[in-house]
Each structure stands twice: as C-alpha cells, then as structure tokens.
C-alpha cells in the first residue's frame, strides 16, 4: 500500500455517471430538502397559530420577574429575560470551569495511580474508575447532592481548612475578595470569581505537563492577574473577607451553594474516571524505549512519568481530553435535576414556562452549545496542526 493509489482521492467515493445524471441527483436532493423544510415550517406555523403563539424574540427585553437563587453576576427580578439568560450562561461556564480544572487534576493523578508499579494501588484505582464509568452521571450527581452533602456536619461543626474555608451542610464557604463598592459597584462578585479562577488555573497549569513555553506564558499571565489584584488590594480597592460563624450560619465570605458543589463534584468525578483511562492509554502508547532510556539515566519512576512519558503522551492525549472538556460543558445541563440555575434551567426551564416561546428558547440554548463546540473544535484543530503533526511521534 506504499504507492499512491491513482483512483482513491482522500478515501471519498468518486462521482459516477454523466453530468446529466449528477444534475438530476442534485435536483432531487434539493427538491427533497425544500419539501421537507417547507412542510416542517408549515407545521410549526400552523401549530403555533393554533396555540396562539408567534415567533418573536421580543420577550427577551421584558422584565423576567423571577429570582435566580445562585448567581455569579448581579441579577434582580426586574432585569430582563436576556439578563437572566446571561446569568444562566455564566453559571454554566462557572461550574464547567471548576469541574474542568478539578477533573484534570484528579484525572491525571488517577491516571498516574493506574500506572503505578504497586498492584494494590493500580487495581483499586481501576475498580474505582470502572465504578464511575459504568454508572449514570445523573445518578452520581444525585448521590452527591442527596446523600453525601446531607451527611455533612451542621454549620457549628463545619469542616474547616485553616480557619478560612469551611464546608458544612449549607455549602462551601470561602473567603471573598471584595471590591470597594464606590469604585466598582457592579463587578463585585465577578472580580471575586475571576480571582479564584485565576488561582485554580494557576495551580492546574503548573500541574499540567505542558511544554515549557506554554507553561511560562500561562503562569506569567496568571501571576500578572494576581499581582494586579494584590496591588488593588494594597491600594484599598479590594479587600479579603473571611467567613465567620455568627449564630447558626456563616457571615461574610462567599457561600458556594450545595447545588453548585454537588454538580461540580459530580461532573469532575465522572470526567476524571474517563481522563484517568485516557492518560493511562496515552502513556502506554509512548514507545517503551523512552521509559527505559529515562530509567537508564537514573530518573525515578515518577520523574520518568513526569518529564519523559507524559509530555510525549500529551500529543495523543489532547484531542480526547478536549472532547472530555466539551462533555463536561454539555453535562452541566444535568444541573437542571438539582435546581442549579444553568442555561437550560433558566432559559429552557423557567423562561419557557413563563413565556411559552419554545422554539426561541431552545434556539438560544442550541446556539450557545453549537457556538462553544465549534469554537473549541477550531482551537483544537489549530493545536493539532501546530503540535501533533510537527512532532511526528
């Protein structure tokens, strides 16, 4: 099969028949497509008319009139449906970002454990990943939400980390980074989240076996953001507020609602089960000589994995890893089942129920997901062209 085949062009089947036949086929295709589309539109039009509805996005500018319990940006019932949708989108992105960072860390760790020379560790990790991969994700999220989080202690007996982070039955309490309300009234919560995401991203990027150049850029950028925050803090525009127990609950700080915690854990754990297996497969695909050469140079097994095998495995690993990240984004819609207000719950749930605009709300949700998917697919193609092909493993 070495010689280029004269007929096979990119594995596609060849056009057959004469020009007339080809035109006829095209004509038939368009005729079927137009007939199908027209009948669908006709049906939708008639069905909507029967229900007294019309296609229009005007409702987006009307006040929503409902409160959203968990929000990362300011929102009140007087704001519009469009603003509510934005809150949902931000919530989706927030929980996805948290879960992606966590799943990467847990997944790579579990992947390394799967590769451990200690059979007890490797086998028990394998049993755990099999359990995760072979049960429905919704079940895991509901289990975390209704069983594990309910079993947490009350506020008075919170699990505490250094007196600044508290976990109890009412959720996770972390210190807040507050802006001076006089200076930036609207971005209070957003600045806080940005700071926390930067911190998490910094930790995650140091953990990832990216190439040194990438890592320098990432870490540098994040450090710059943190330095900016620190400077603002010293200048008095920002201050840190730790949660304090007052009576039966905590005051101050940021309360991460149990719904967010449950969805975050559920999404992260499920994805990390798959990531662990991918890491294992990708590392095993690295030629055996690489590991042996590293061992011959006196590197410990951990350093061999960290410095020799993982960086090479990453070339195979990145495309499936990104599709896992997209899966996390898509699965965040499961928040609907535990009342976490992500885009589906806000737009296709409450907004649809209140306004009845089924087609418009579903279009908004679909456009959001198709848009993010296409963007990320494009980025991954760029990455593939730049890294995977040039390397020539």
């Amino acid at each position, binding site marked *: 099969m070495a010689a280029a085949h004269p007929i096979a062009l990119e594995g*596609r089947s060849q056009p057959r028949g004469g020009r007339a036949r080809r035109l006829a086929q095209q004509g038939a295709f*368009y005729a079927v497509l137009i007939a199908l589309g027209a009948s669908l539109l006709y*049906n939708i039009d008639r069905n909507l008319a029967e229900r007294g509805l019309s296609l229009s996005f005007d409702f987006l500018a009307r006040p929503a009139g409902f409160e959203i319990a968990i929000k990362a940006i300011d929102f009140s019932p007087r704001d519009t449906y469009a603003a509510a949708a934005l809150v949902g989108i931000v919530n989706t992105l927030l929980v996805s970002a948290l879960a992606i960072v966590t799943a990467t860390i847990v997944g790579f760790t579990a992947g390394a454990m799967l590769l*451990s020379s200690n059979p007890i560790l490797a086998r028990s990790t394998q049993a755990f990943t099999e359990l995760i991969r*072979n049960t*429905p994700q919704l079940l895991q999220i509901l289990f975390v939400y209704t069983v594990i989080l309910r079993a947490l202690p009350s506020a008075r007996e919170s699990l505490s980390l250094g007196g600044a982070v508290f976990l109890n039955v009412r959720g996770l309490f972390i210190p807040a980074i507050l802006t001076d309300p006089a200076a930036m009234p609207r971005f209070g919560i957003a600045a806080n989240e940005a700071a926390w995401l930067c911190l998490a991203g910094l930790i995650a990027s140091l953990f990832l076996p990216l190439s040194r150049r990438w890592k320098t850029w990432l870490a540098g950028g994040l450090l710059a953001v943190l330095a900016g925050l620190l400077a603002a803090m010293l200048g008095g525009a920002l201050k840190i507020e730790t949660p304090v127990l007052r009576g039966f609950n905590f005051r101050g700080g940021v309360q991460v609602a149990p719904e967010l915690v449950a969805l975050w854990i559920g999404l992260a754990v499920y994805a990390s089960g798959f990531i662990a297996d991918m890491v294992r497969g990708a590392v095993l695909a690295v030629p055996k000589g690489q590991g042996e050469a590293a061992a011959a140079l006196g590197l410990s097994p951990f350093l061999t994995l960290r410095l020799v095998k993982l960086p090479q495995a990453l070339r195979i690993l990145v495309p499936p890893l990104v599709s896992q990240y997209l899966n996390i984004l898509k699965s965040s819609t499961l928040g609907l089942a535990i009342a976490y207000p992500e885009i589906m719950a806000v737009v296709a749930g409450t907004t649809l129920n209140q306004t009845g605009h089924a087609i418009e709300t*579903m279009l908004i949700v679909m456009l959001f997901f198709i848009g993010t998917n296409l963007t990320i697919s494009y980025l991954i193609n760029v990455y593939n062209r730049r890294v995977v092909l040039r390397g020539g493993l």
Partner: protein
Amino acid sequence: MTSLPPPVLRRSLAQRLRVLFATPMNAAITLAMIGLAAWLGPKLFVWAVSDATFLGSDRKACGDGACWIFIRIRMHDLMYGSYPTPETYRPDLCALALVALIGAAAWPGNPRRTEGLVALLLVYPLAALLFLRGGFAGLPVVETRLWGGLLLNFVLSFIAIVVSVPLGLLLAEGRRSSQPEIAAFCTGFIEIWRAAPIVTILFFGIVILPLMLPRGIDFNKFGCVAIALTLFSSAYMAEAIRGGLQALPAGQHEAALSLSLKPWQARLLVVWPQALRLSIPAIVTNAIDLFKDTSLVTIVGLFDLLGSLQQAIKDPQWLGLAAEGYVFVAGVFLAICSVLSFLARRLERELAVDRHR
C-alpha cells in the same frame, strides 16, 4: 521462518508480594491502602450486610444498618414502573429472550452466530415491542405511558440503537459523499446533534417535536423521547461507522467494482458488511453510553429506573433511605454495563485476531 513465542515469565507468590514493598514509597502506599481497606471495609460490611434489615414489611423493622426492605417493597416500580402486575411475565420473558440472544450472538463457538445477530437486531425488537404492548391473541393492551423502571431503560435504548445503526450508516455514507450538498447536509446534521447536550435533545423531543408534526399525528411523551434519543444516537453511530468505513482499504470497493458488481451491490455486499464489522467496538461503546444516558429521561418526567427511585425516596413512609436506593440502582447499572463492556472487549480482541490472520 519459524519464530518462537516470547518466553512466559512466571513469578512466584513471594516475588509478587515483594513488589508491594520494593521501595519505601511502594511500602508506604501498600500500608496506606491496607489501612484504608481495614478502616472502610468493615464499616461498609456492617452497614450493608450485618446490621442491615432484609426481612419485614415496614420502616419499624429497620435498625441502624441499610434498610433493604424499602428496595424489596418498591421492586415492582423500579423494574416495571406502572406496568400492570399480572402482566409482568411479559417483560420477564423479553428479558430472558434478550439474555439468550445476546449470549447466542456473542458466544464465539456458536455456528449460527450471524443468524443470532440478525434475530437480535431485526426480529427481537419488533417482536418484543408488540408482545410488551399486547392487544392481540387475548393479550390485554398495556399503553406505553405505563412502561417504566428498568424496562423503560431497556426499551428506549434498544429502539434508539436498532434504528440508529442503519440511519448512522446512511449519514456516514452521506458525509463521505462526493456530492458537496449531501456531504454538507450530513455533516451539519451530525455535528449539530453531537454539539447539543442530551438534556437539550430530550427537551427538543417533548417541546419542539410535537410542534413539527402534521395534524393528526400525535406522539405521547414516550414516543417523542424515543424519537429524540434515536436521532441523537444516529449522529454518534454515524461517526462510529465512518471510522469503520475509513479503516476499510479502498481496494475492497474497487475490487468489487472490477468484478462488475453494480455500485449499490458493491456497497451492500462488500463494503458495508466489512465496515460495520470494523466499527462494532465503537458501536457497542456508544450503546453502553446510550443505555446509561436513558436514565436522563427522569429530567423530562418519565419514570425509568432512576426516576422511579427518585419518586420512591420522596415517599413520606420511607424518607431518608436515599443511600440504599442509589446503591441499588448503581449496582444494577454497574452490573449491566460491566457485562456489556466485557463482551465488547472480547469482541474487539476477536476482531483484532481475525484482521491479523
């Protein structure tokens, strides 16, 4: 040239145990894992078995451990939903037939394996659906809206898988078509369904789909969800089968044409059977994922296994027993999915051996 197989290294038990303490790190890990098992294992055993209550008929019989009575009393809902009790022999018979057919299709020694596969994929689904619905030969009709529990998971995933494989084959061929319009249409269709979350697709099924249907055609929730899941699954099957089509050497198609087979004959008799065979592992993986995903119909208000459980744990008589319920449902899914993945792995090995022969 003959070659010897590589020598088999046999290690004694002592040598194997030595690995556990080979380095200080390994010793520490081993001790930590043993410690964890010694701490967690007995606790779990006490909760699930020794302190658990299996017999009895109400909440008062339960002690400190797990209350498995709850599962036993709710078993009908969890397995069949609202399917009438005197008729449950029908799903039971269908399940038995399914196990027998999967066994016949997966057992390598079976001389009639192809026939088993055809029966499983073409005859069984229709026969089982008709039998479950009834309405002939003295069988009372059981409406689809009464179907629930694990039965619903099986029915929905079976419908979706059986219909989506041929649909996926057509979409995959369409995506590879030399006609740009057809290729663009199929690519768009596949990518849109793959970009959307399954929850969105289920909503599409119960909210948008009824709006698209002409007057007089009216599906209930079960039908809408089944159609939505089928379309969703066909996009994933298309990608799985496209992998198989791409892996098949182009020479197969050309050889078939040079034997003066007509193009459709070449596809039907030469290309598709081989490509489908190559894509079986990916198809089975998709099928397992779909089976797990059918539990999401809970969100749109159908009562599958998980949905029936969600209802059961809200029963005021049995509050606070969520843990038992989730453990049971997880066990059921784990058992079914593990068996299917085991079969898939064996099939994959078998196909790999066939290919290298």
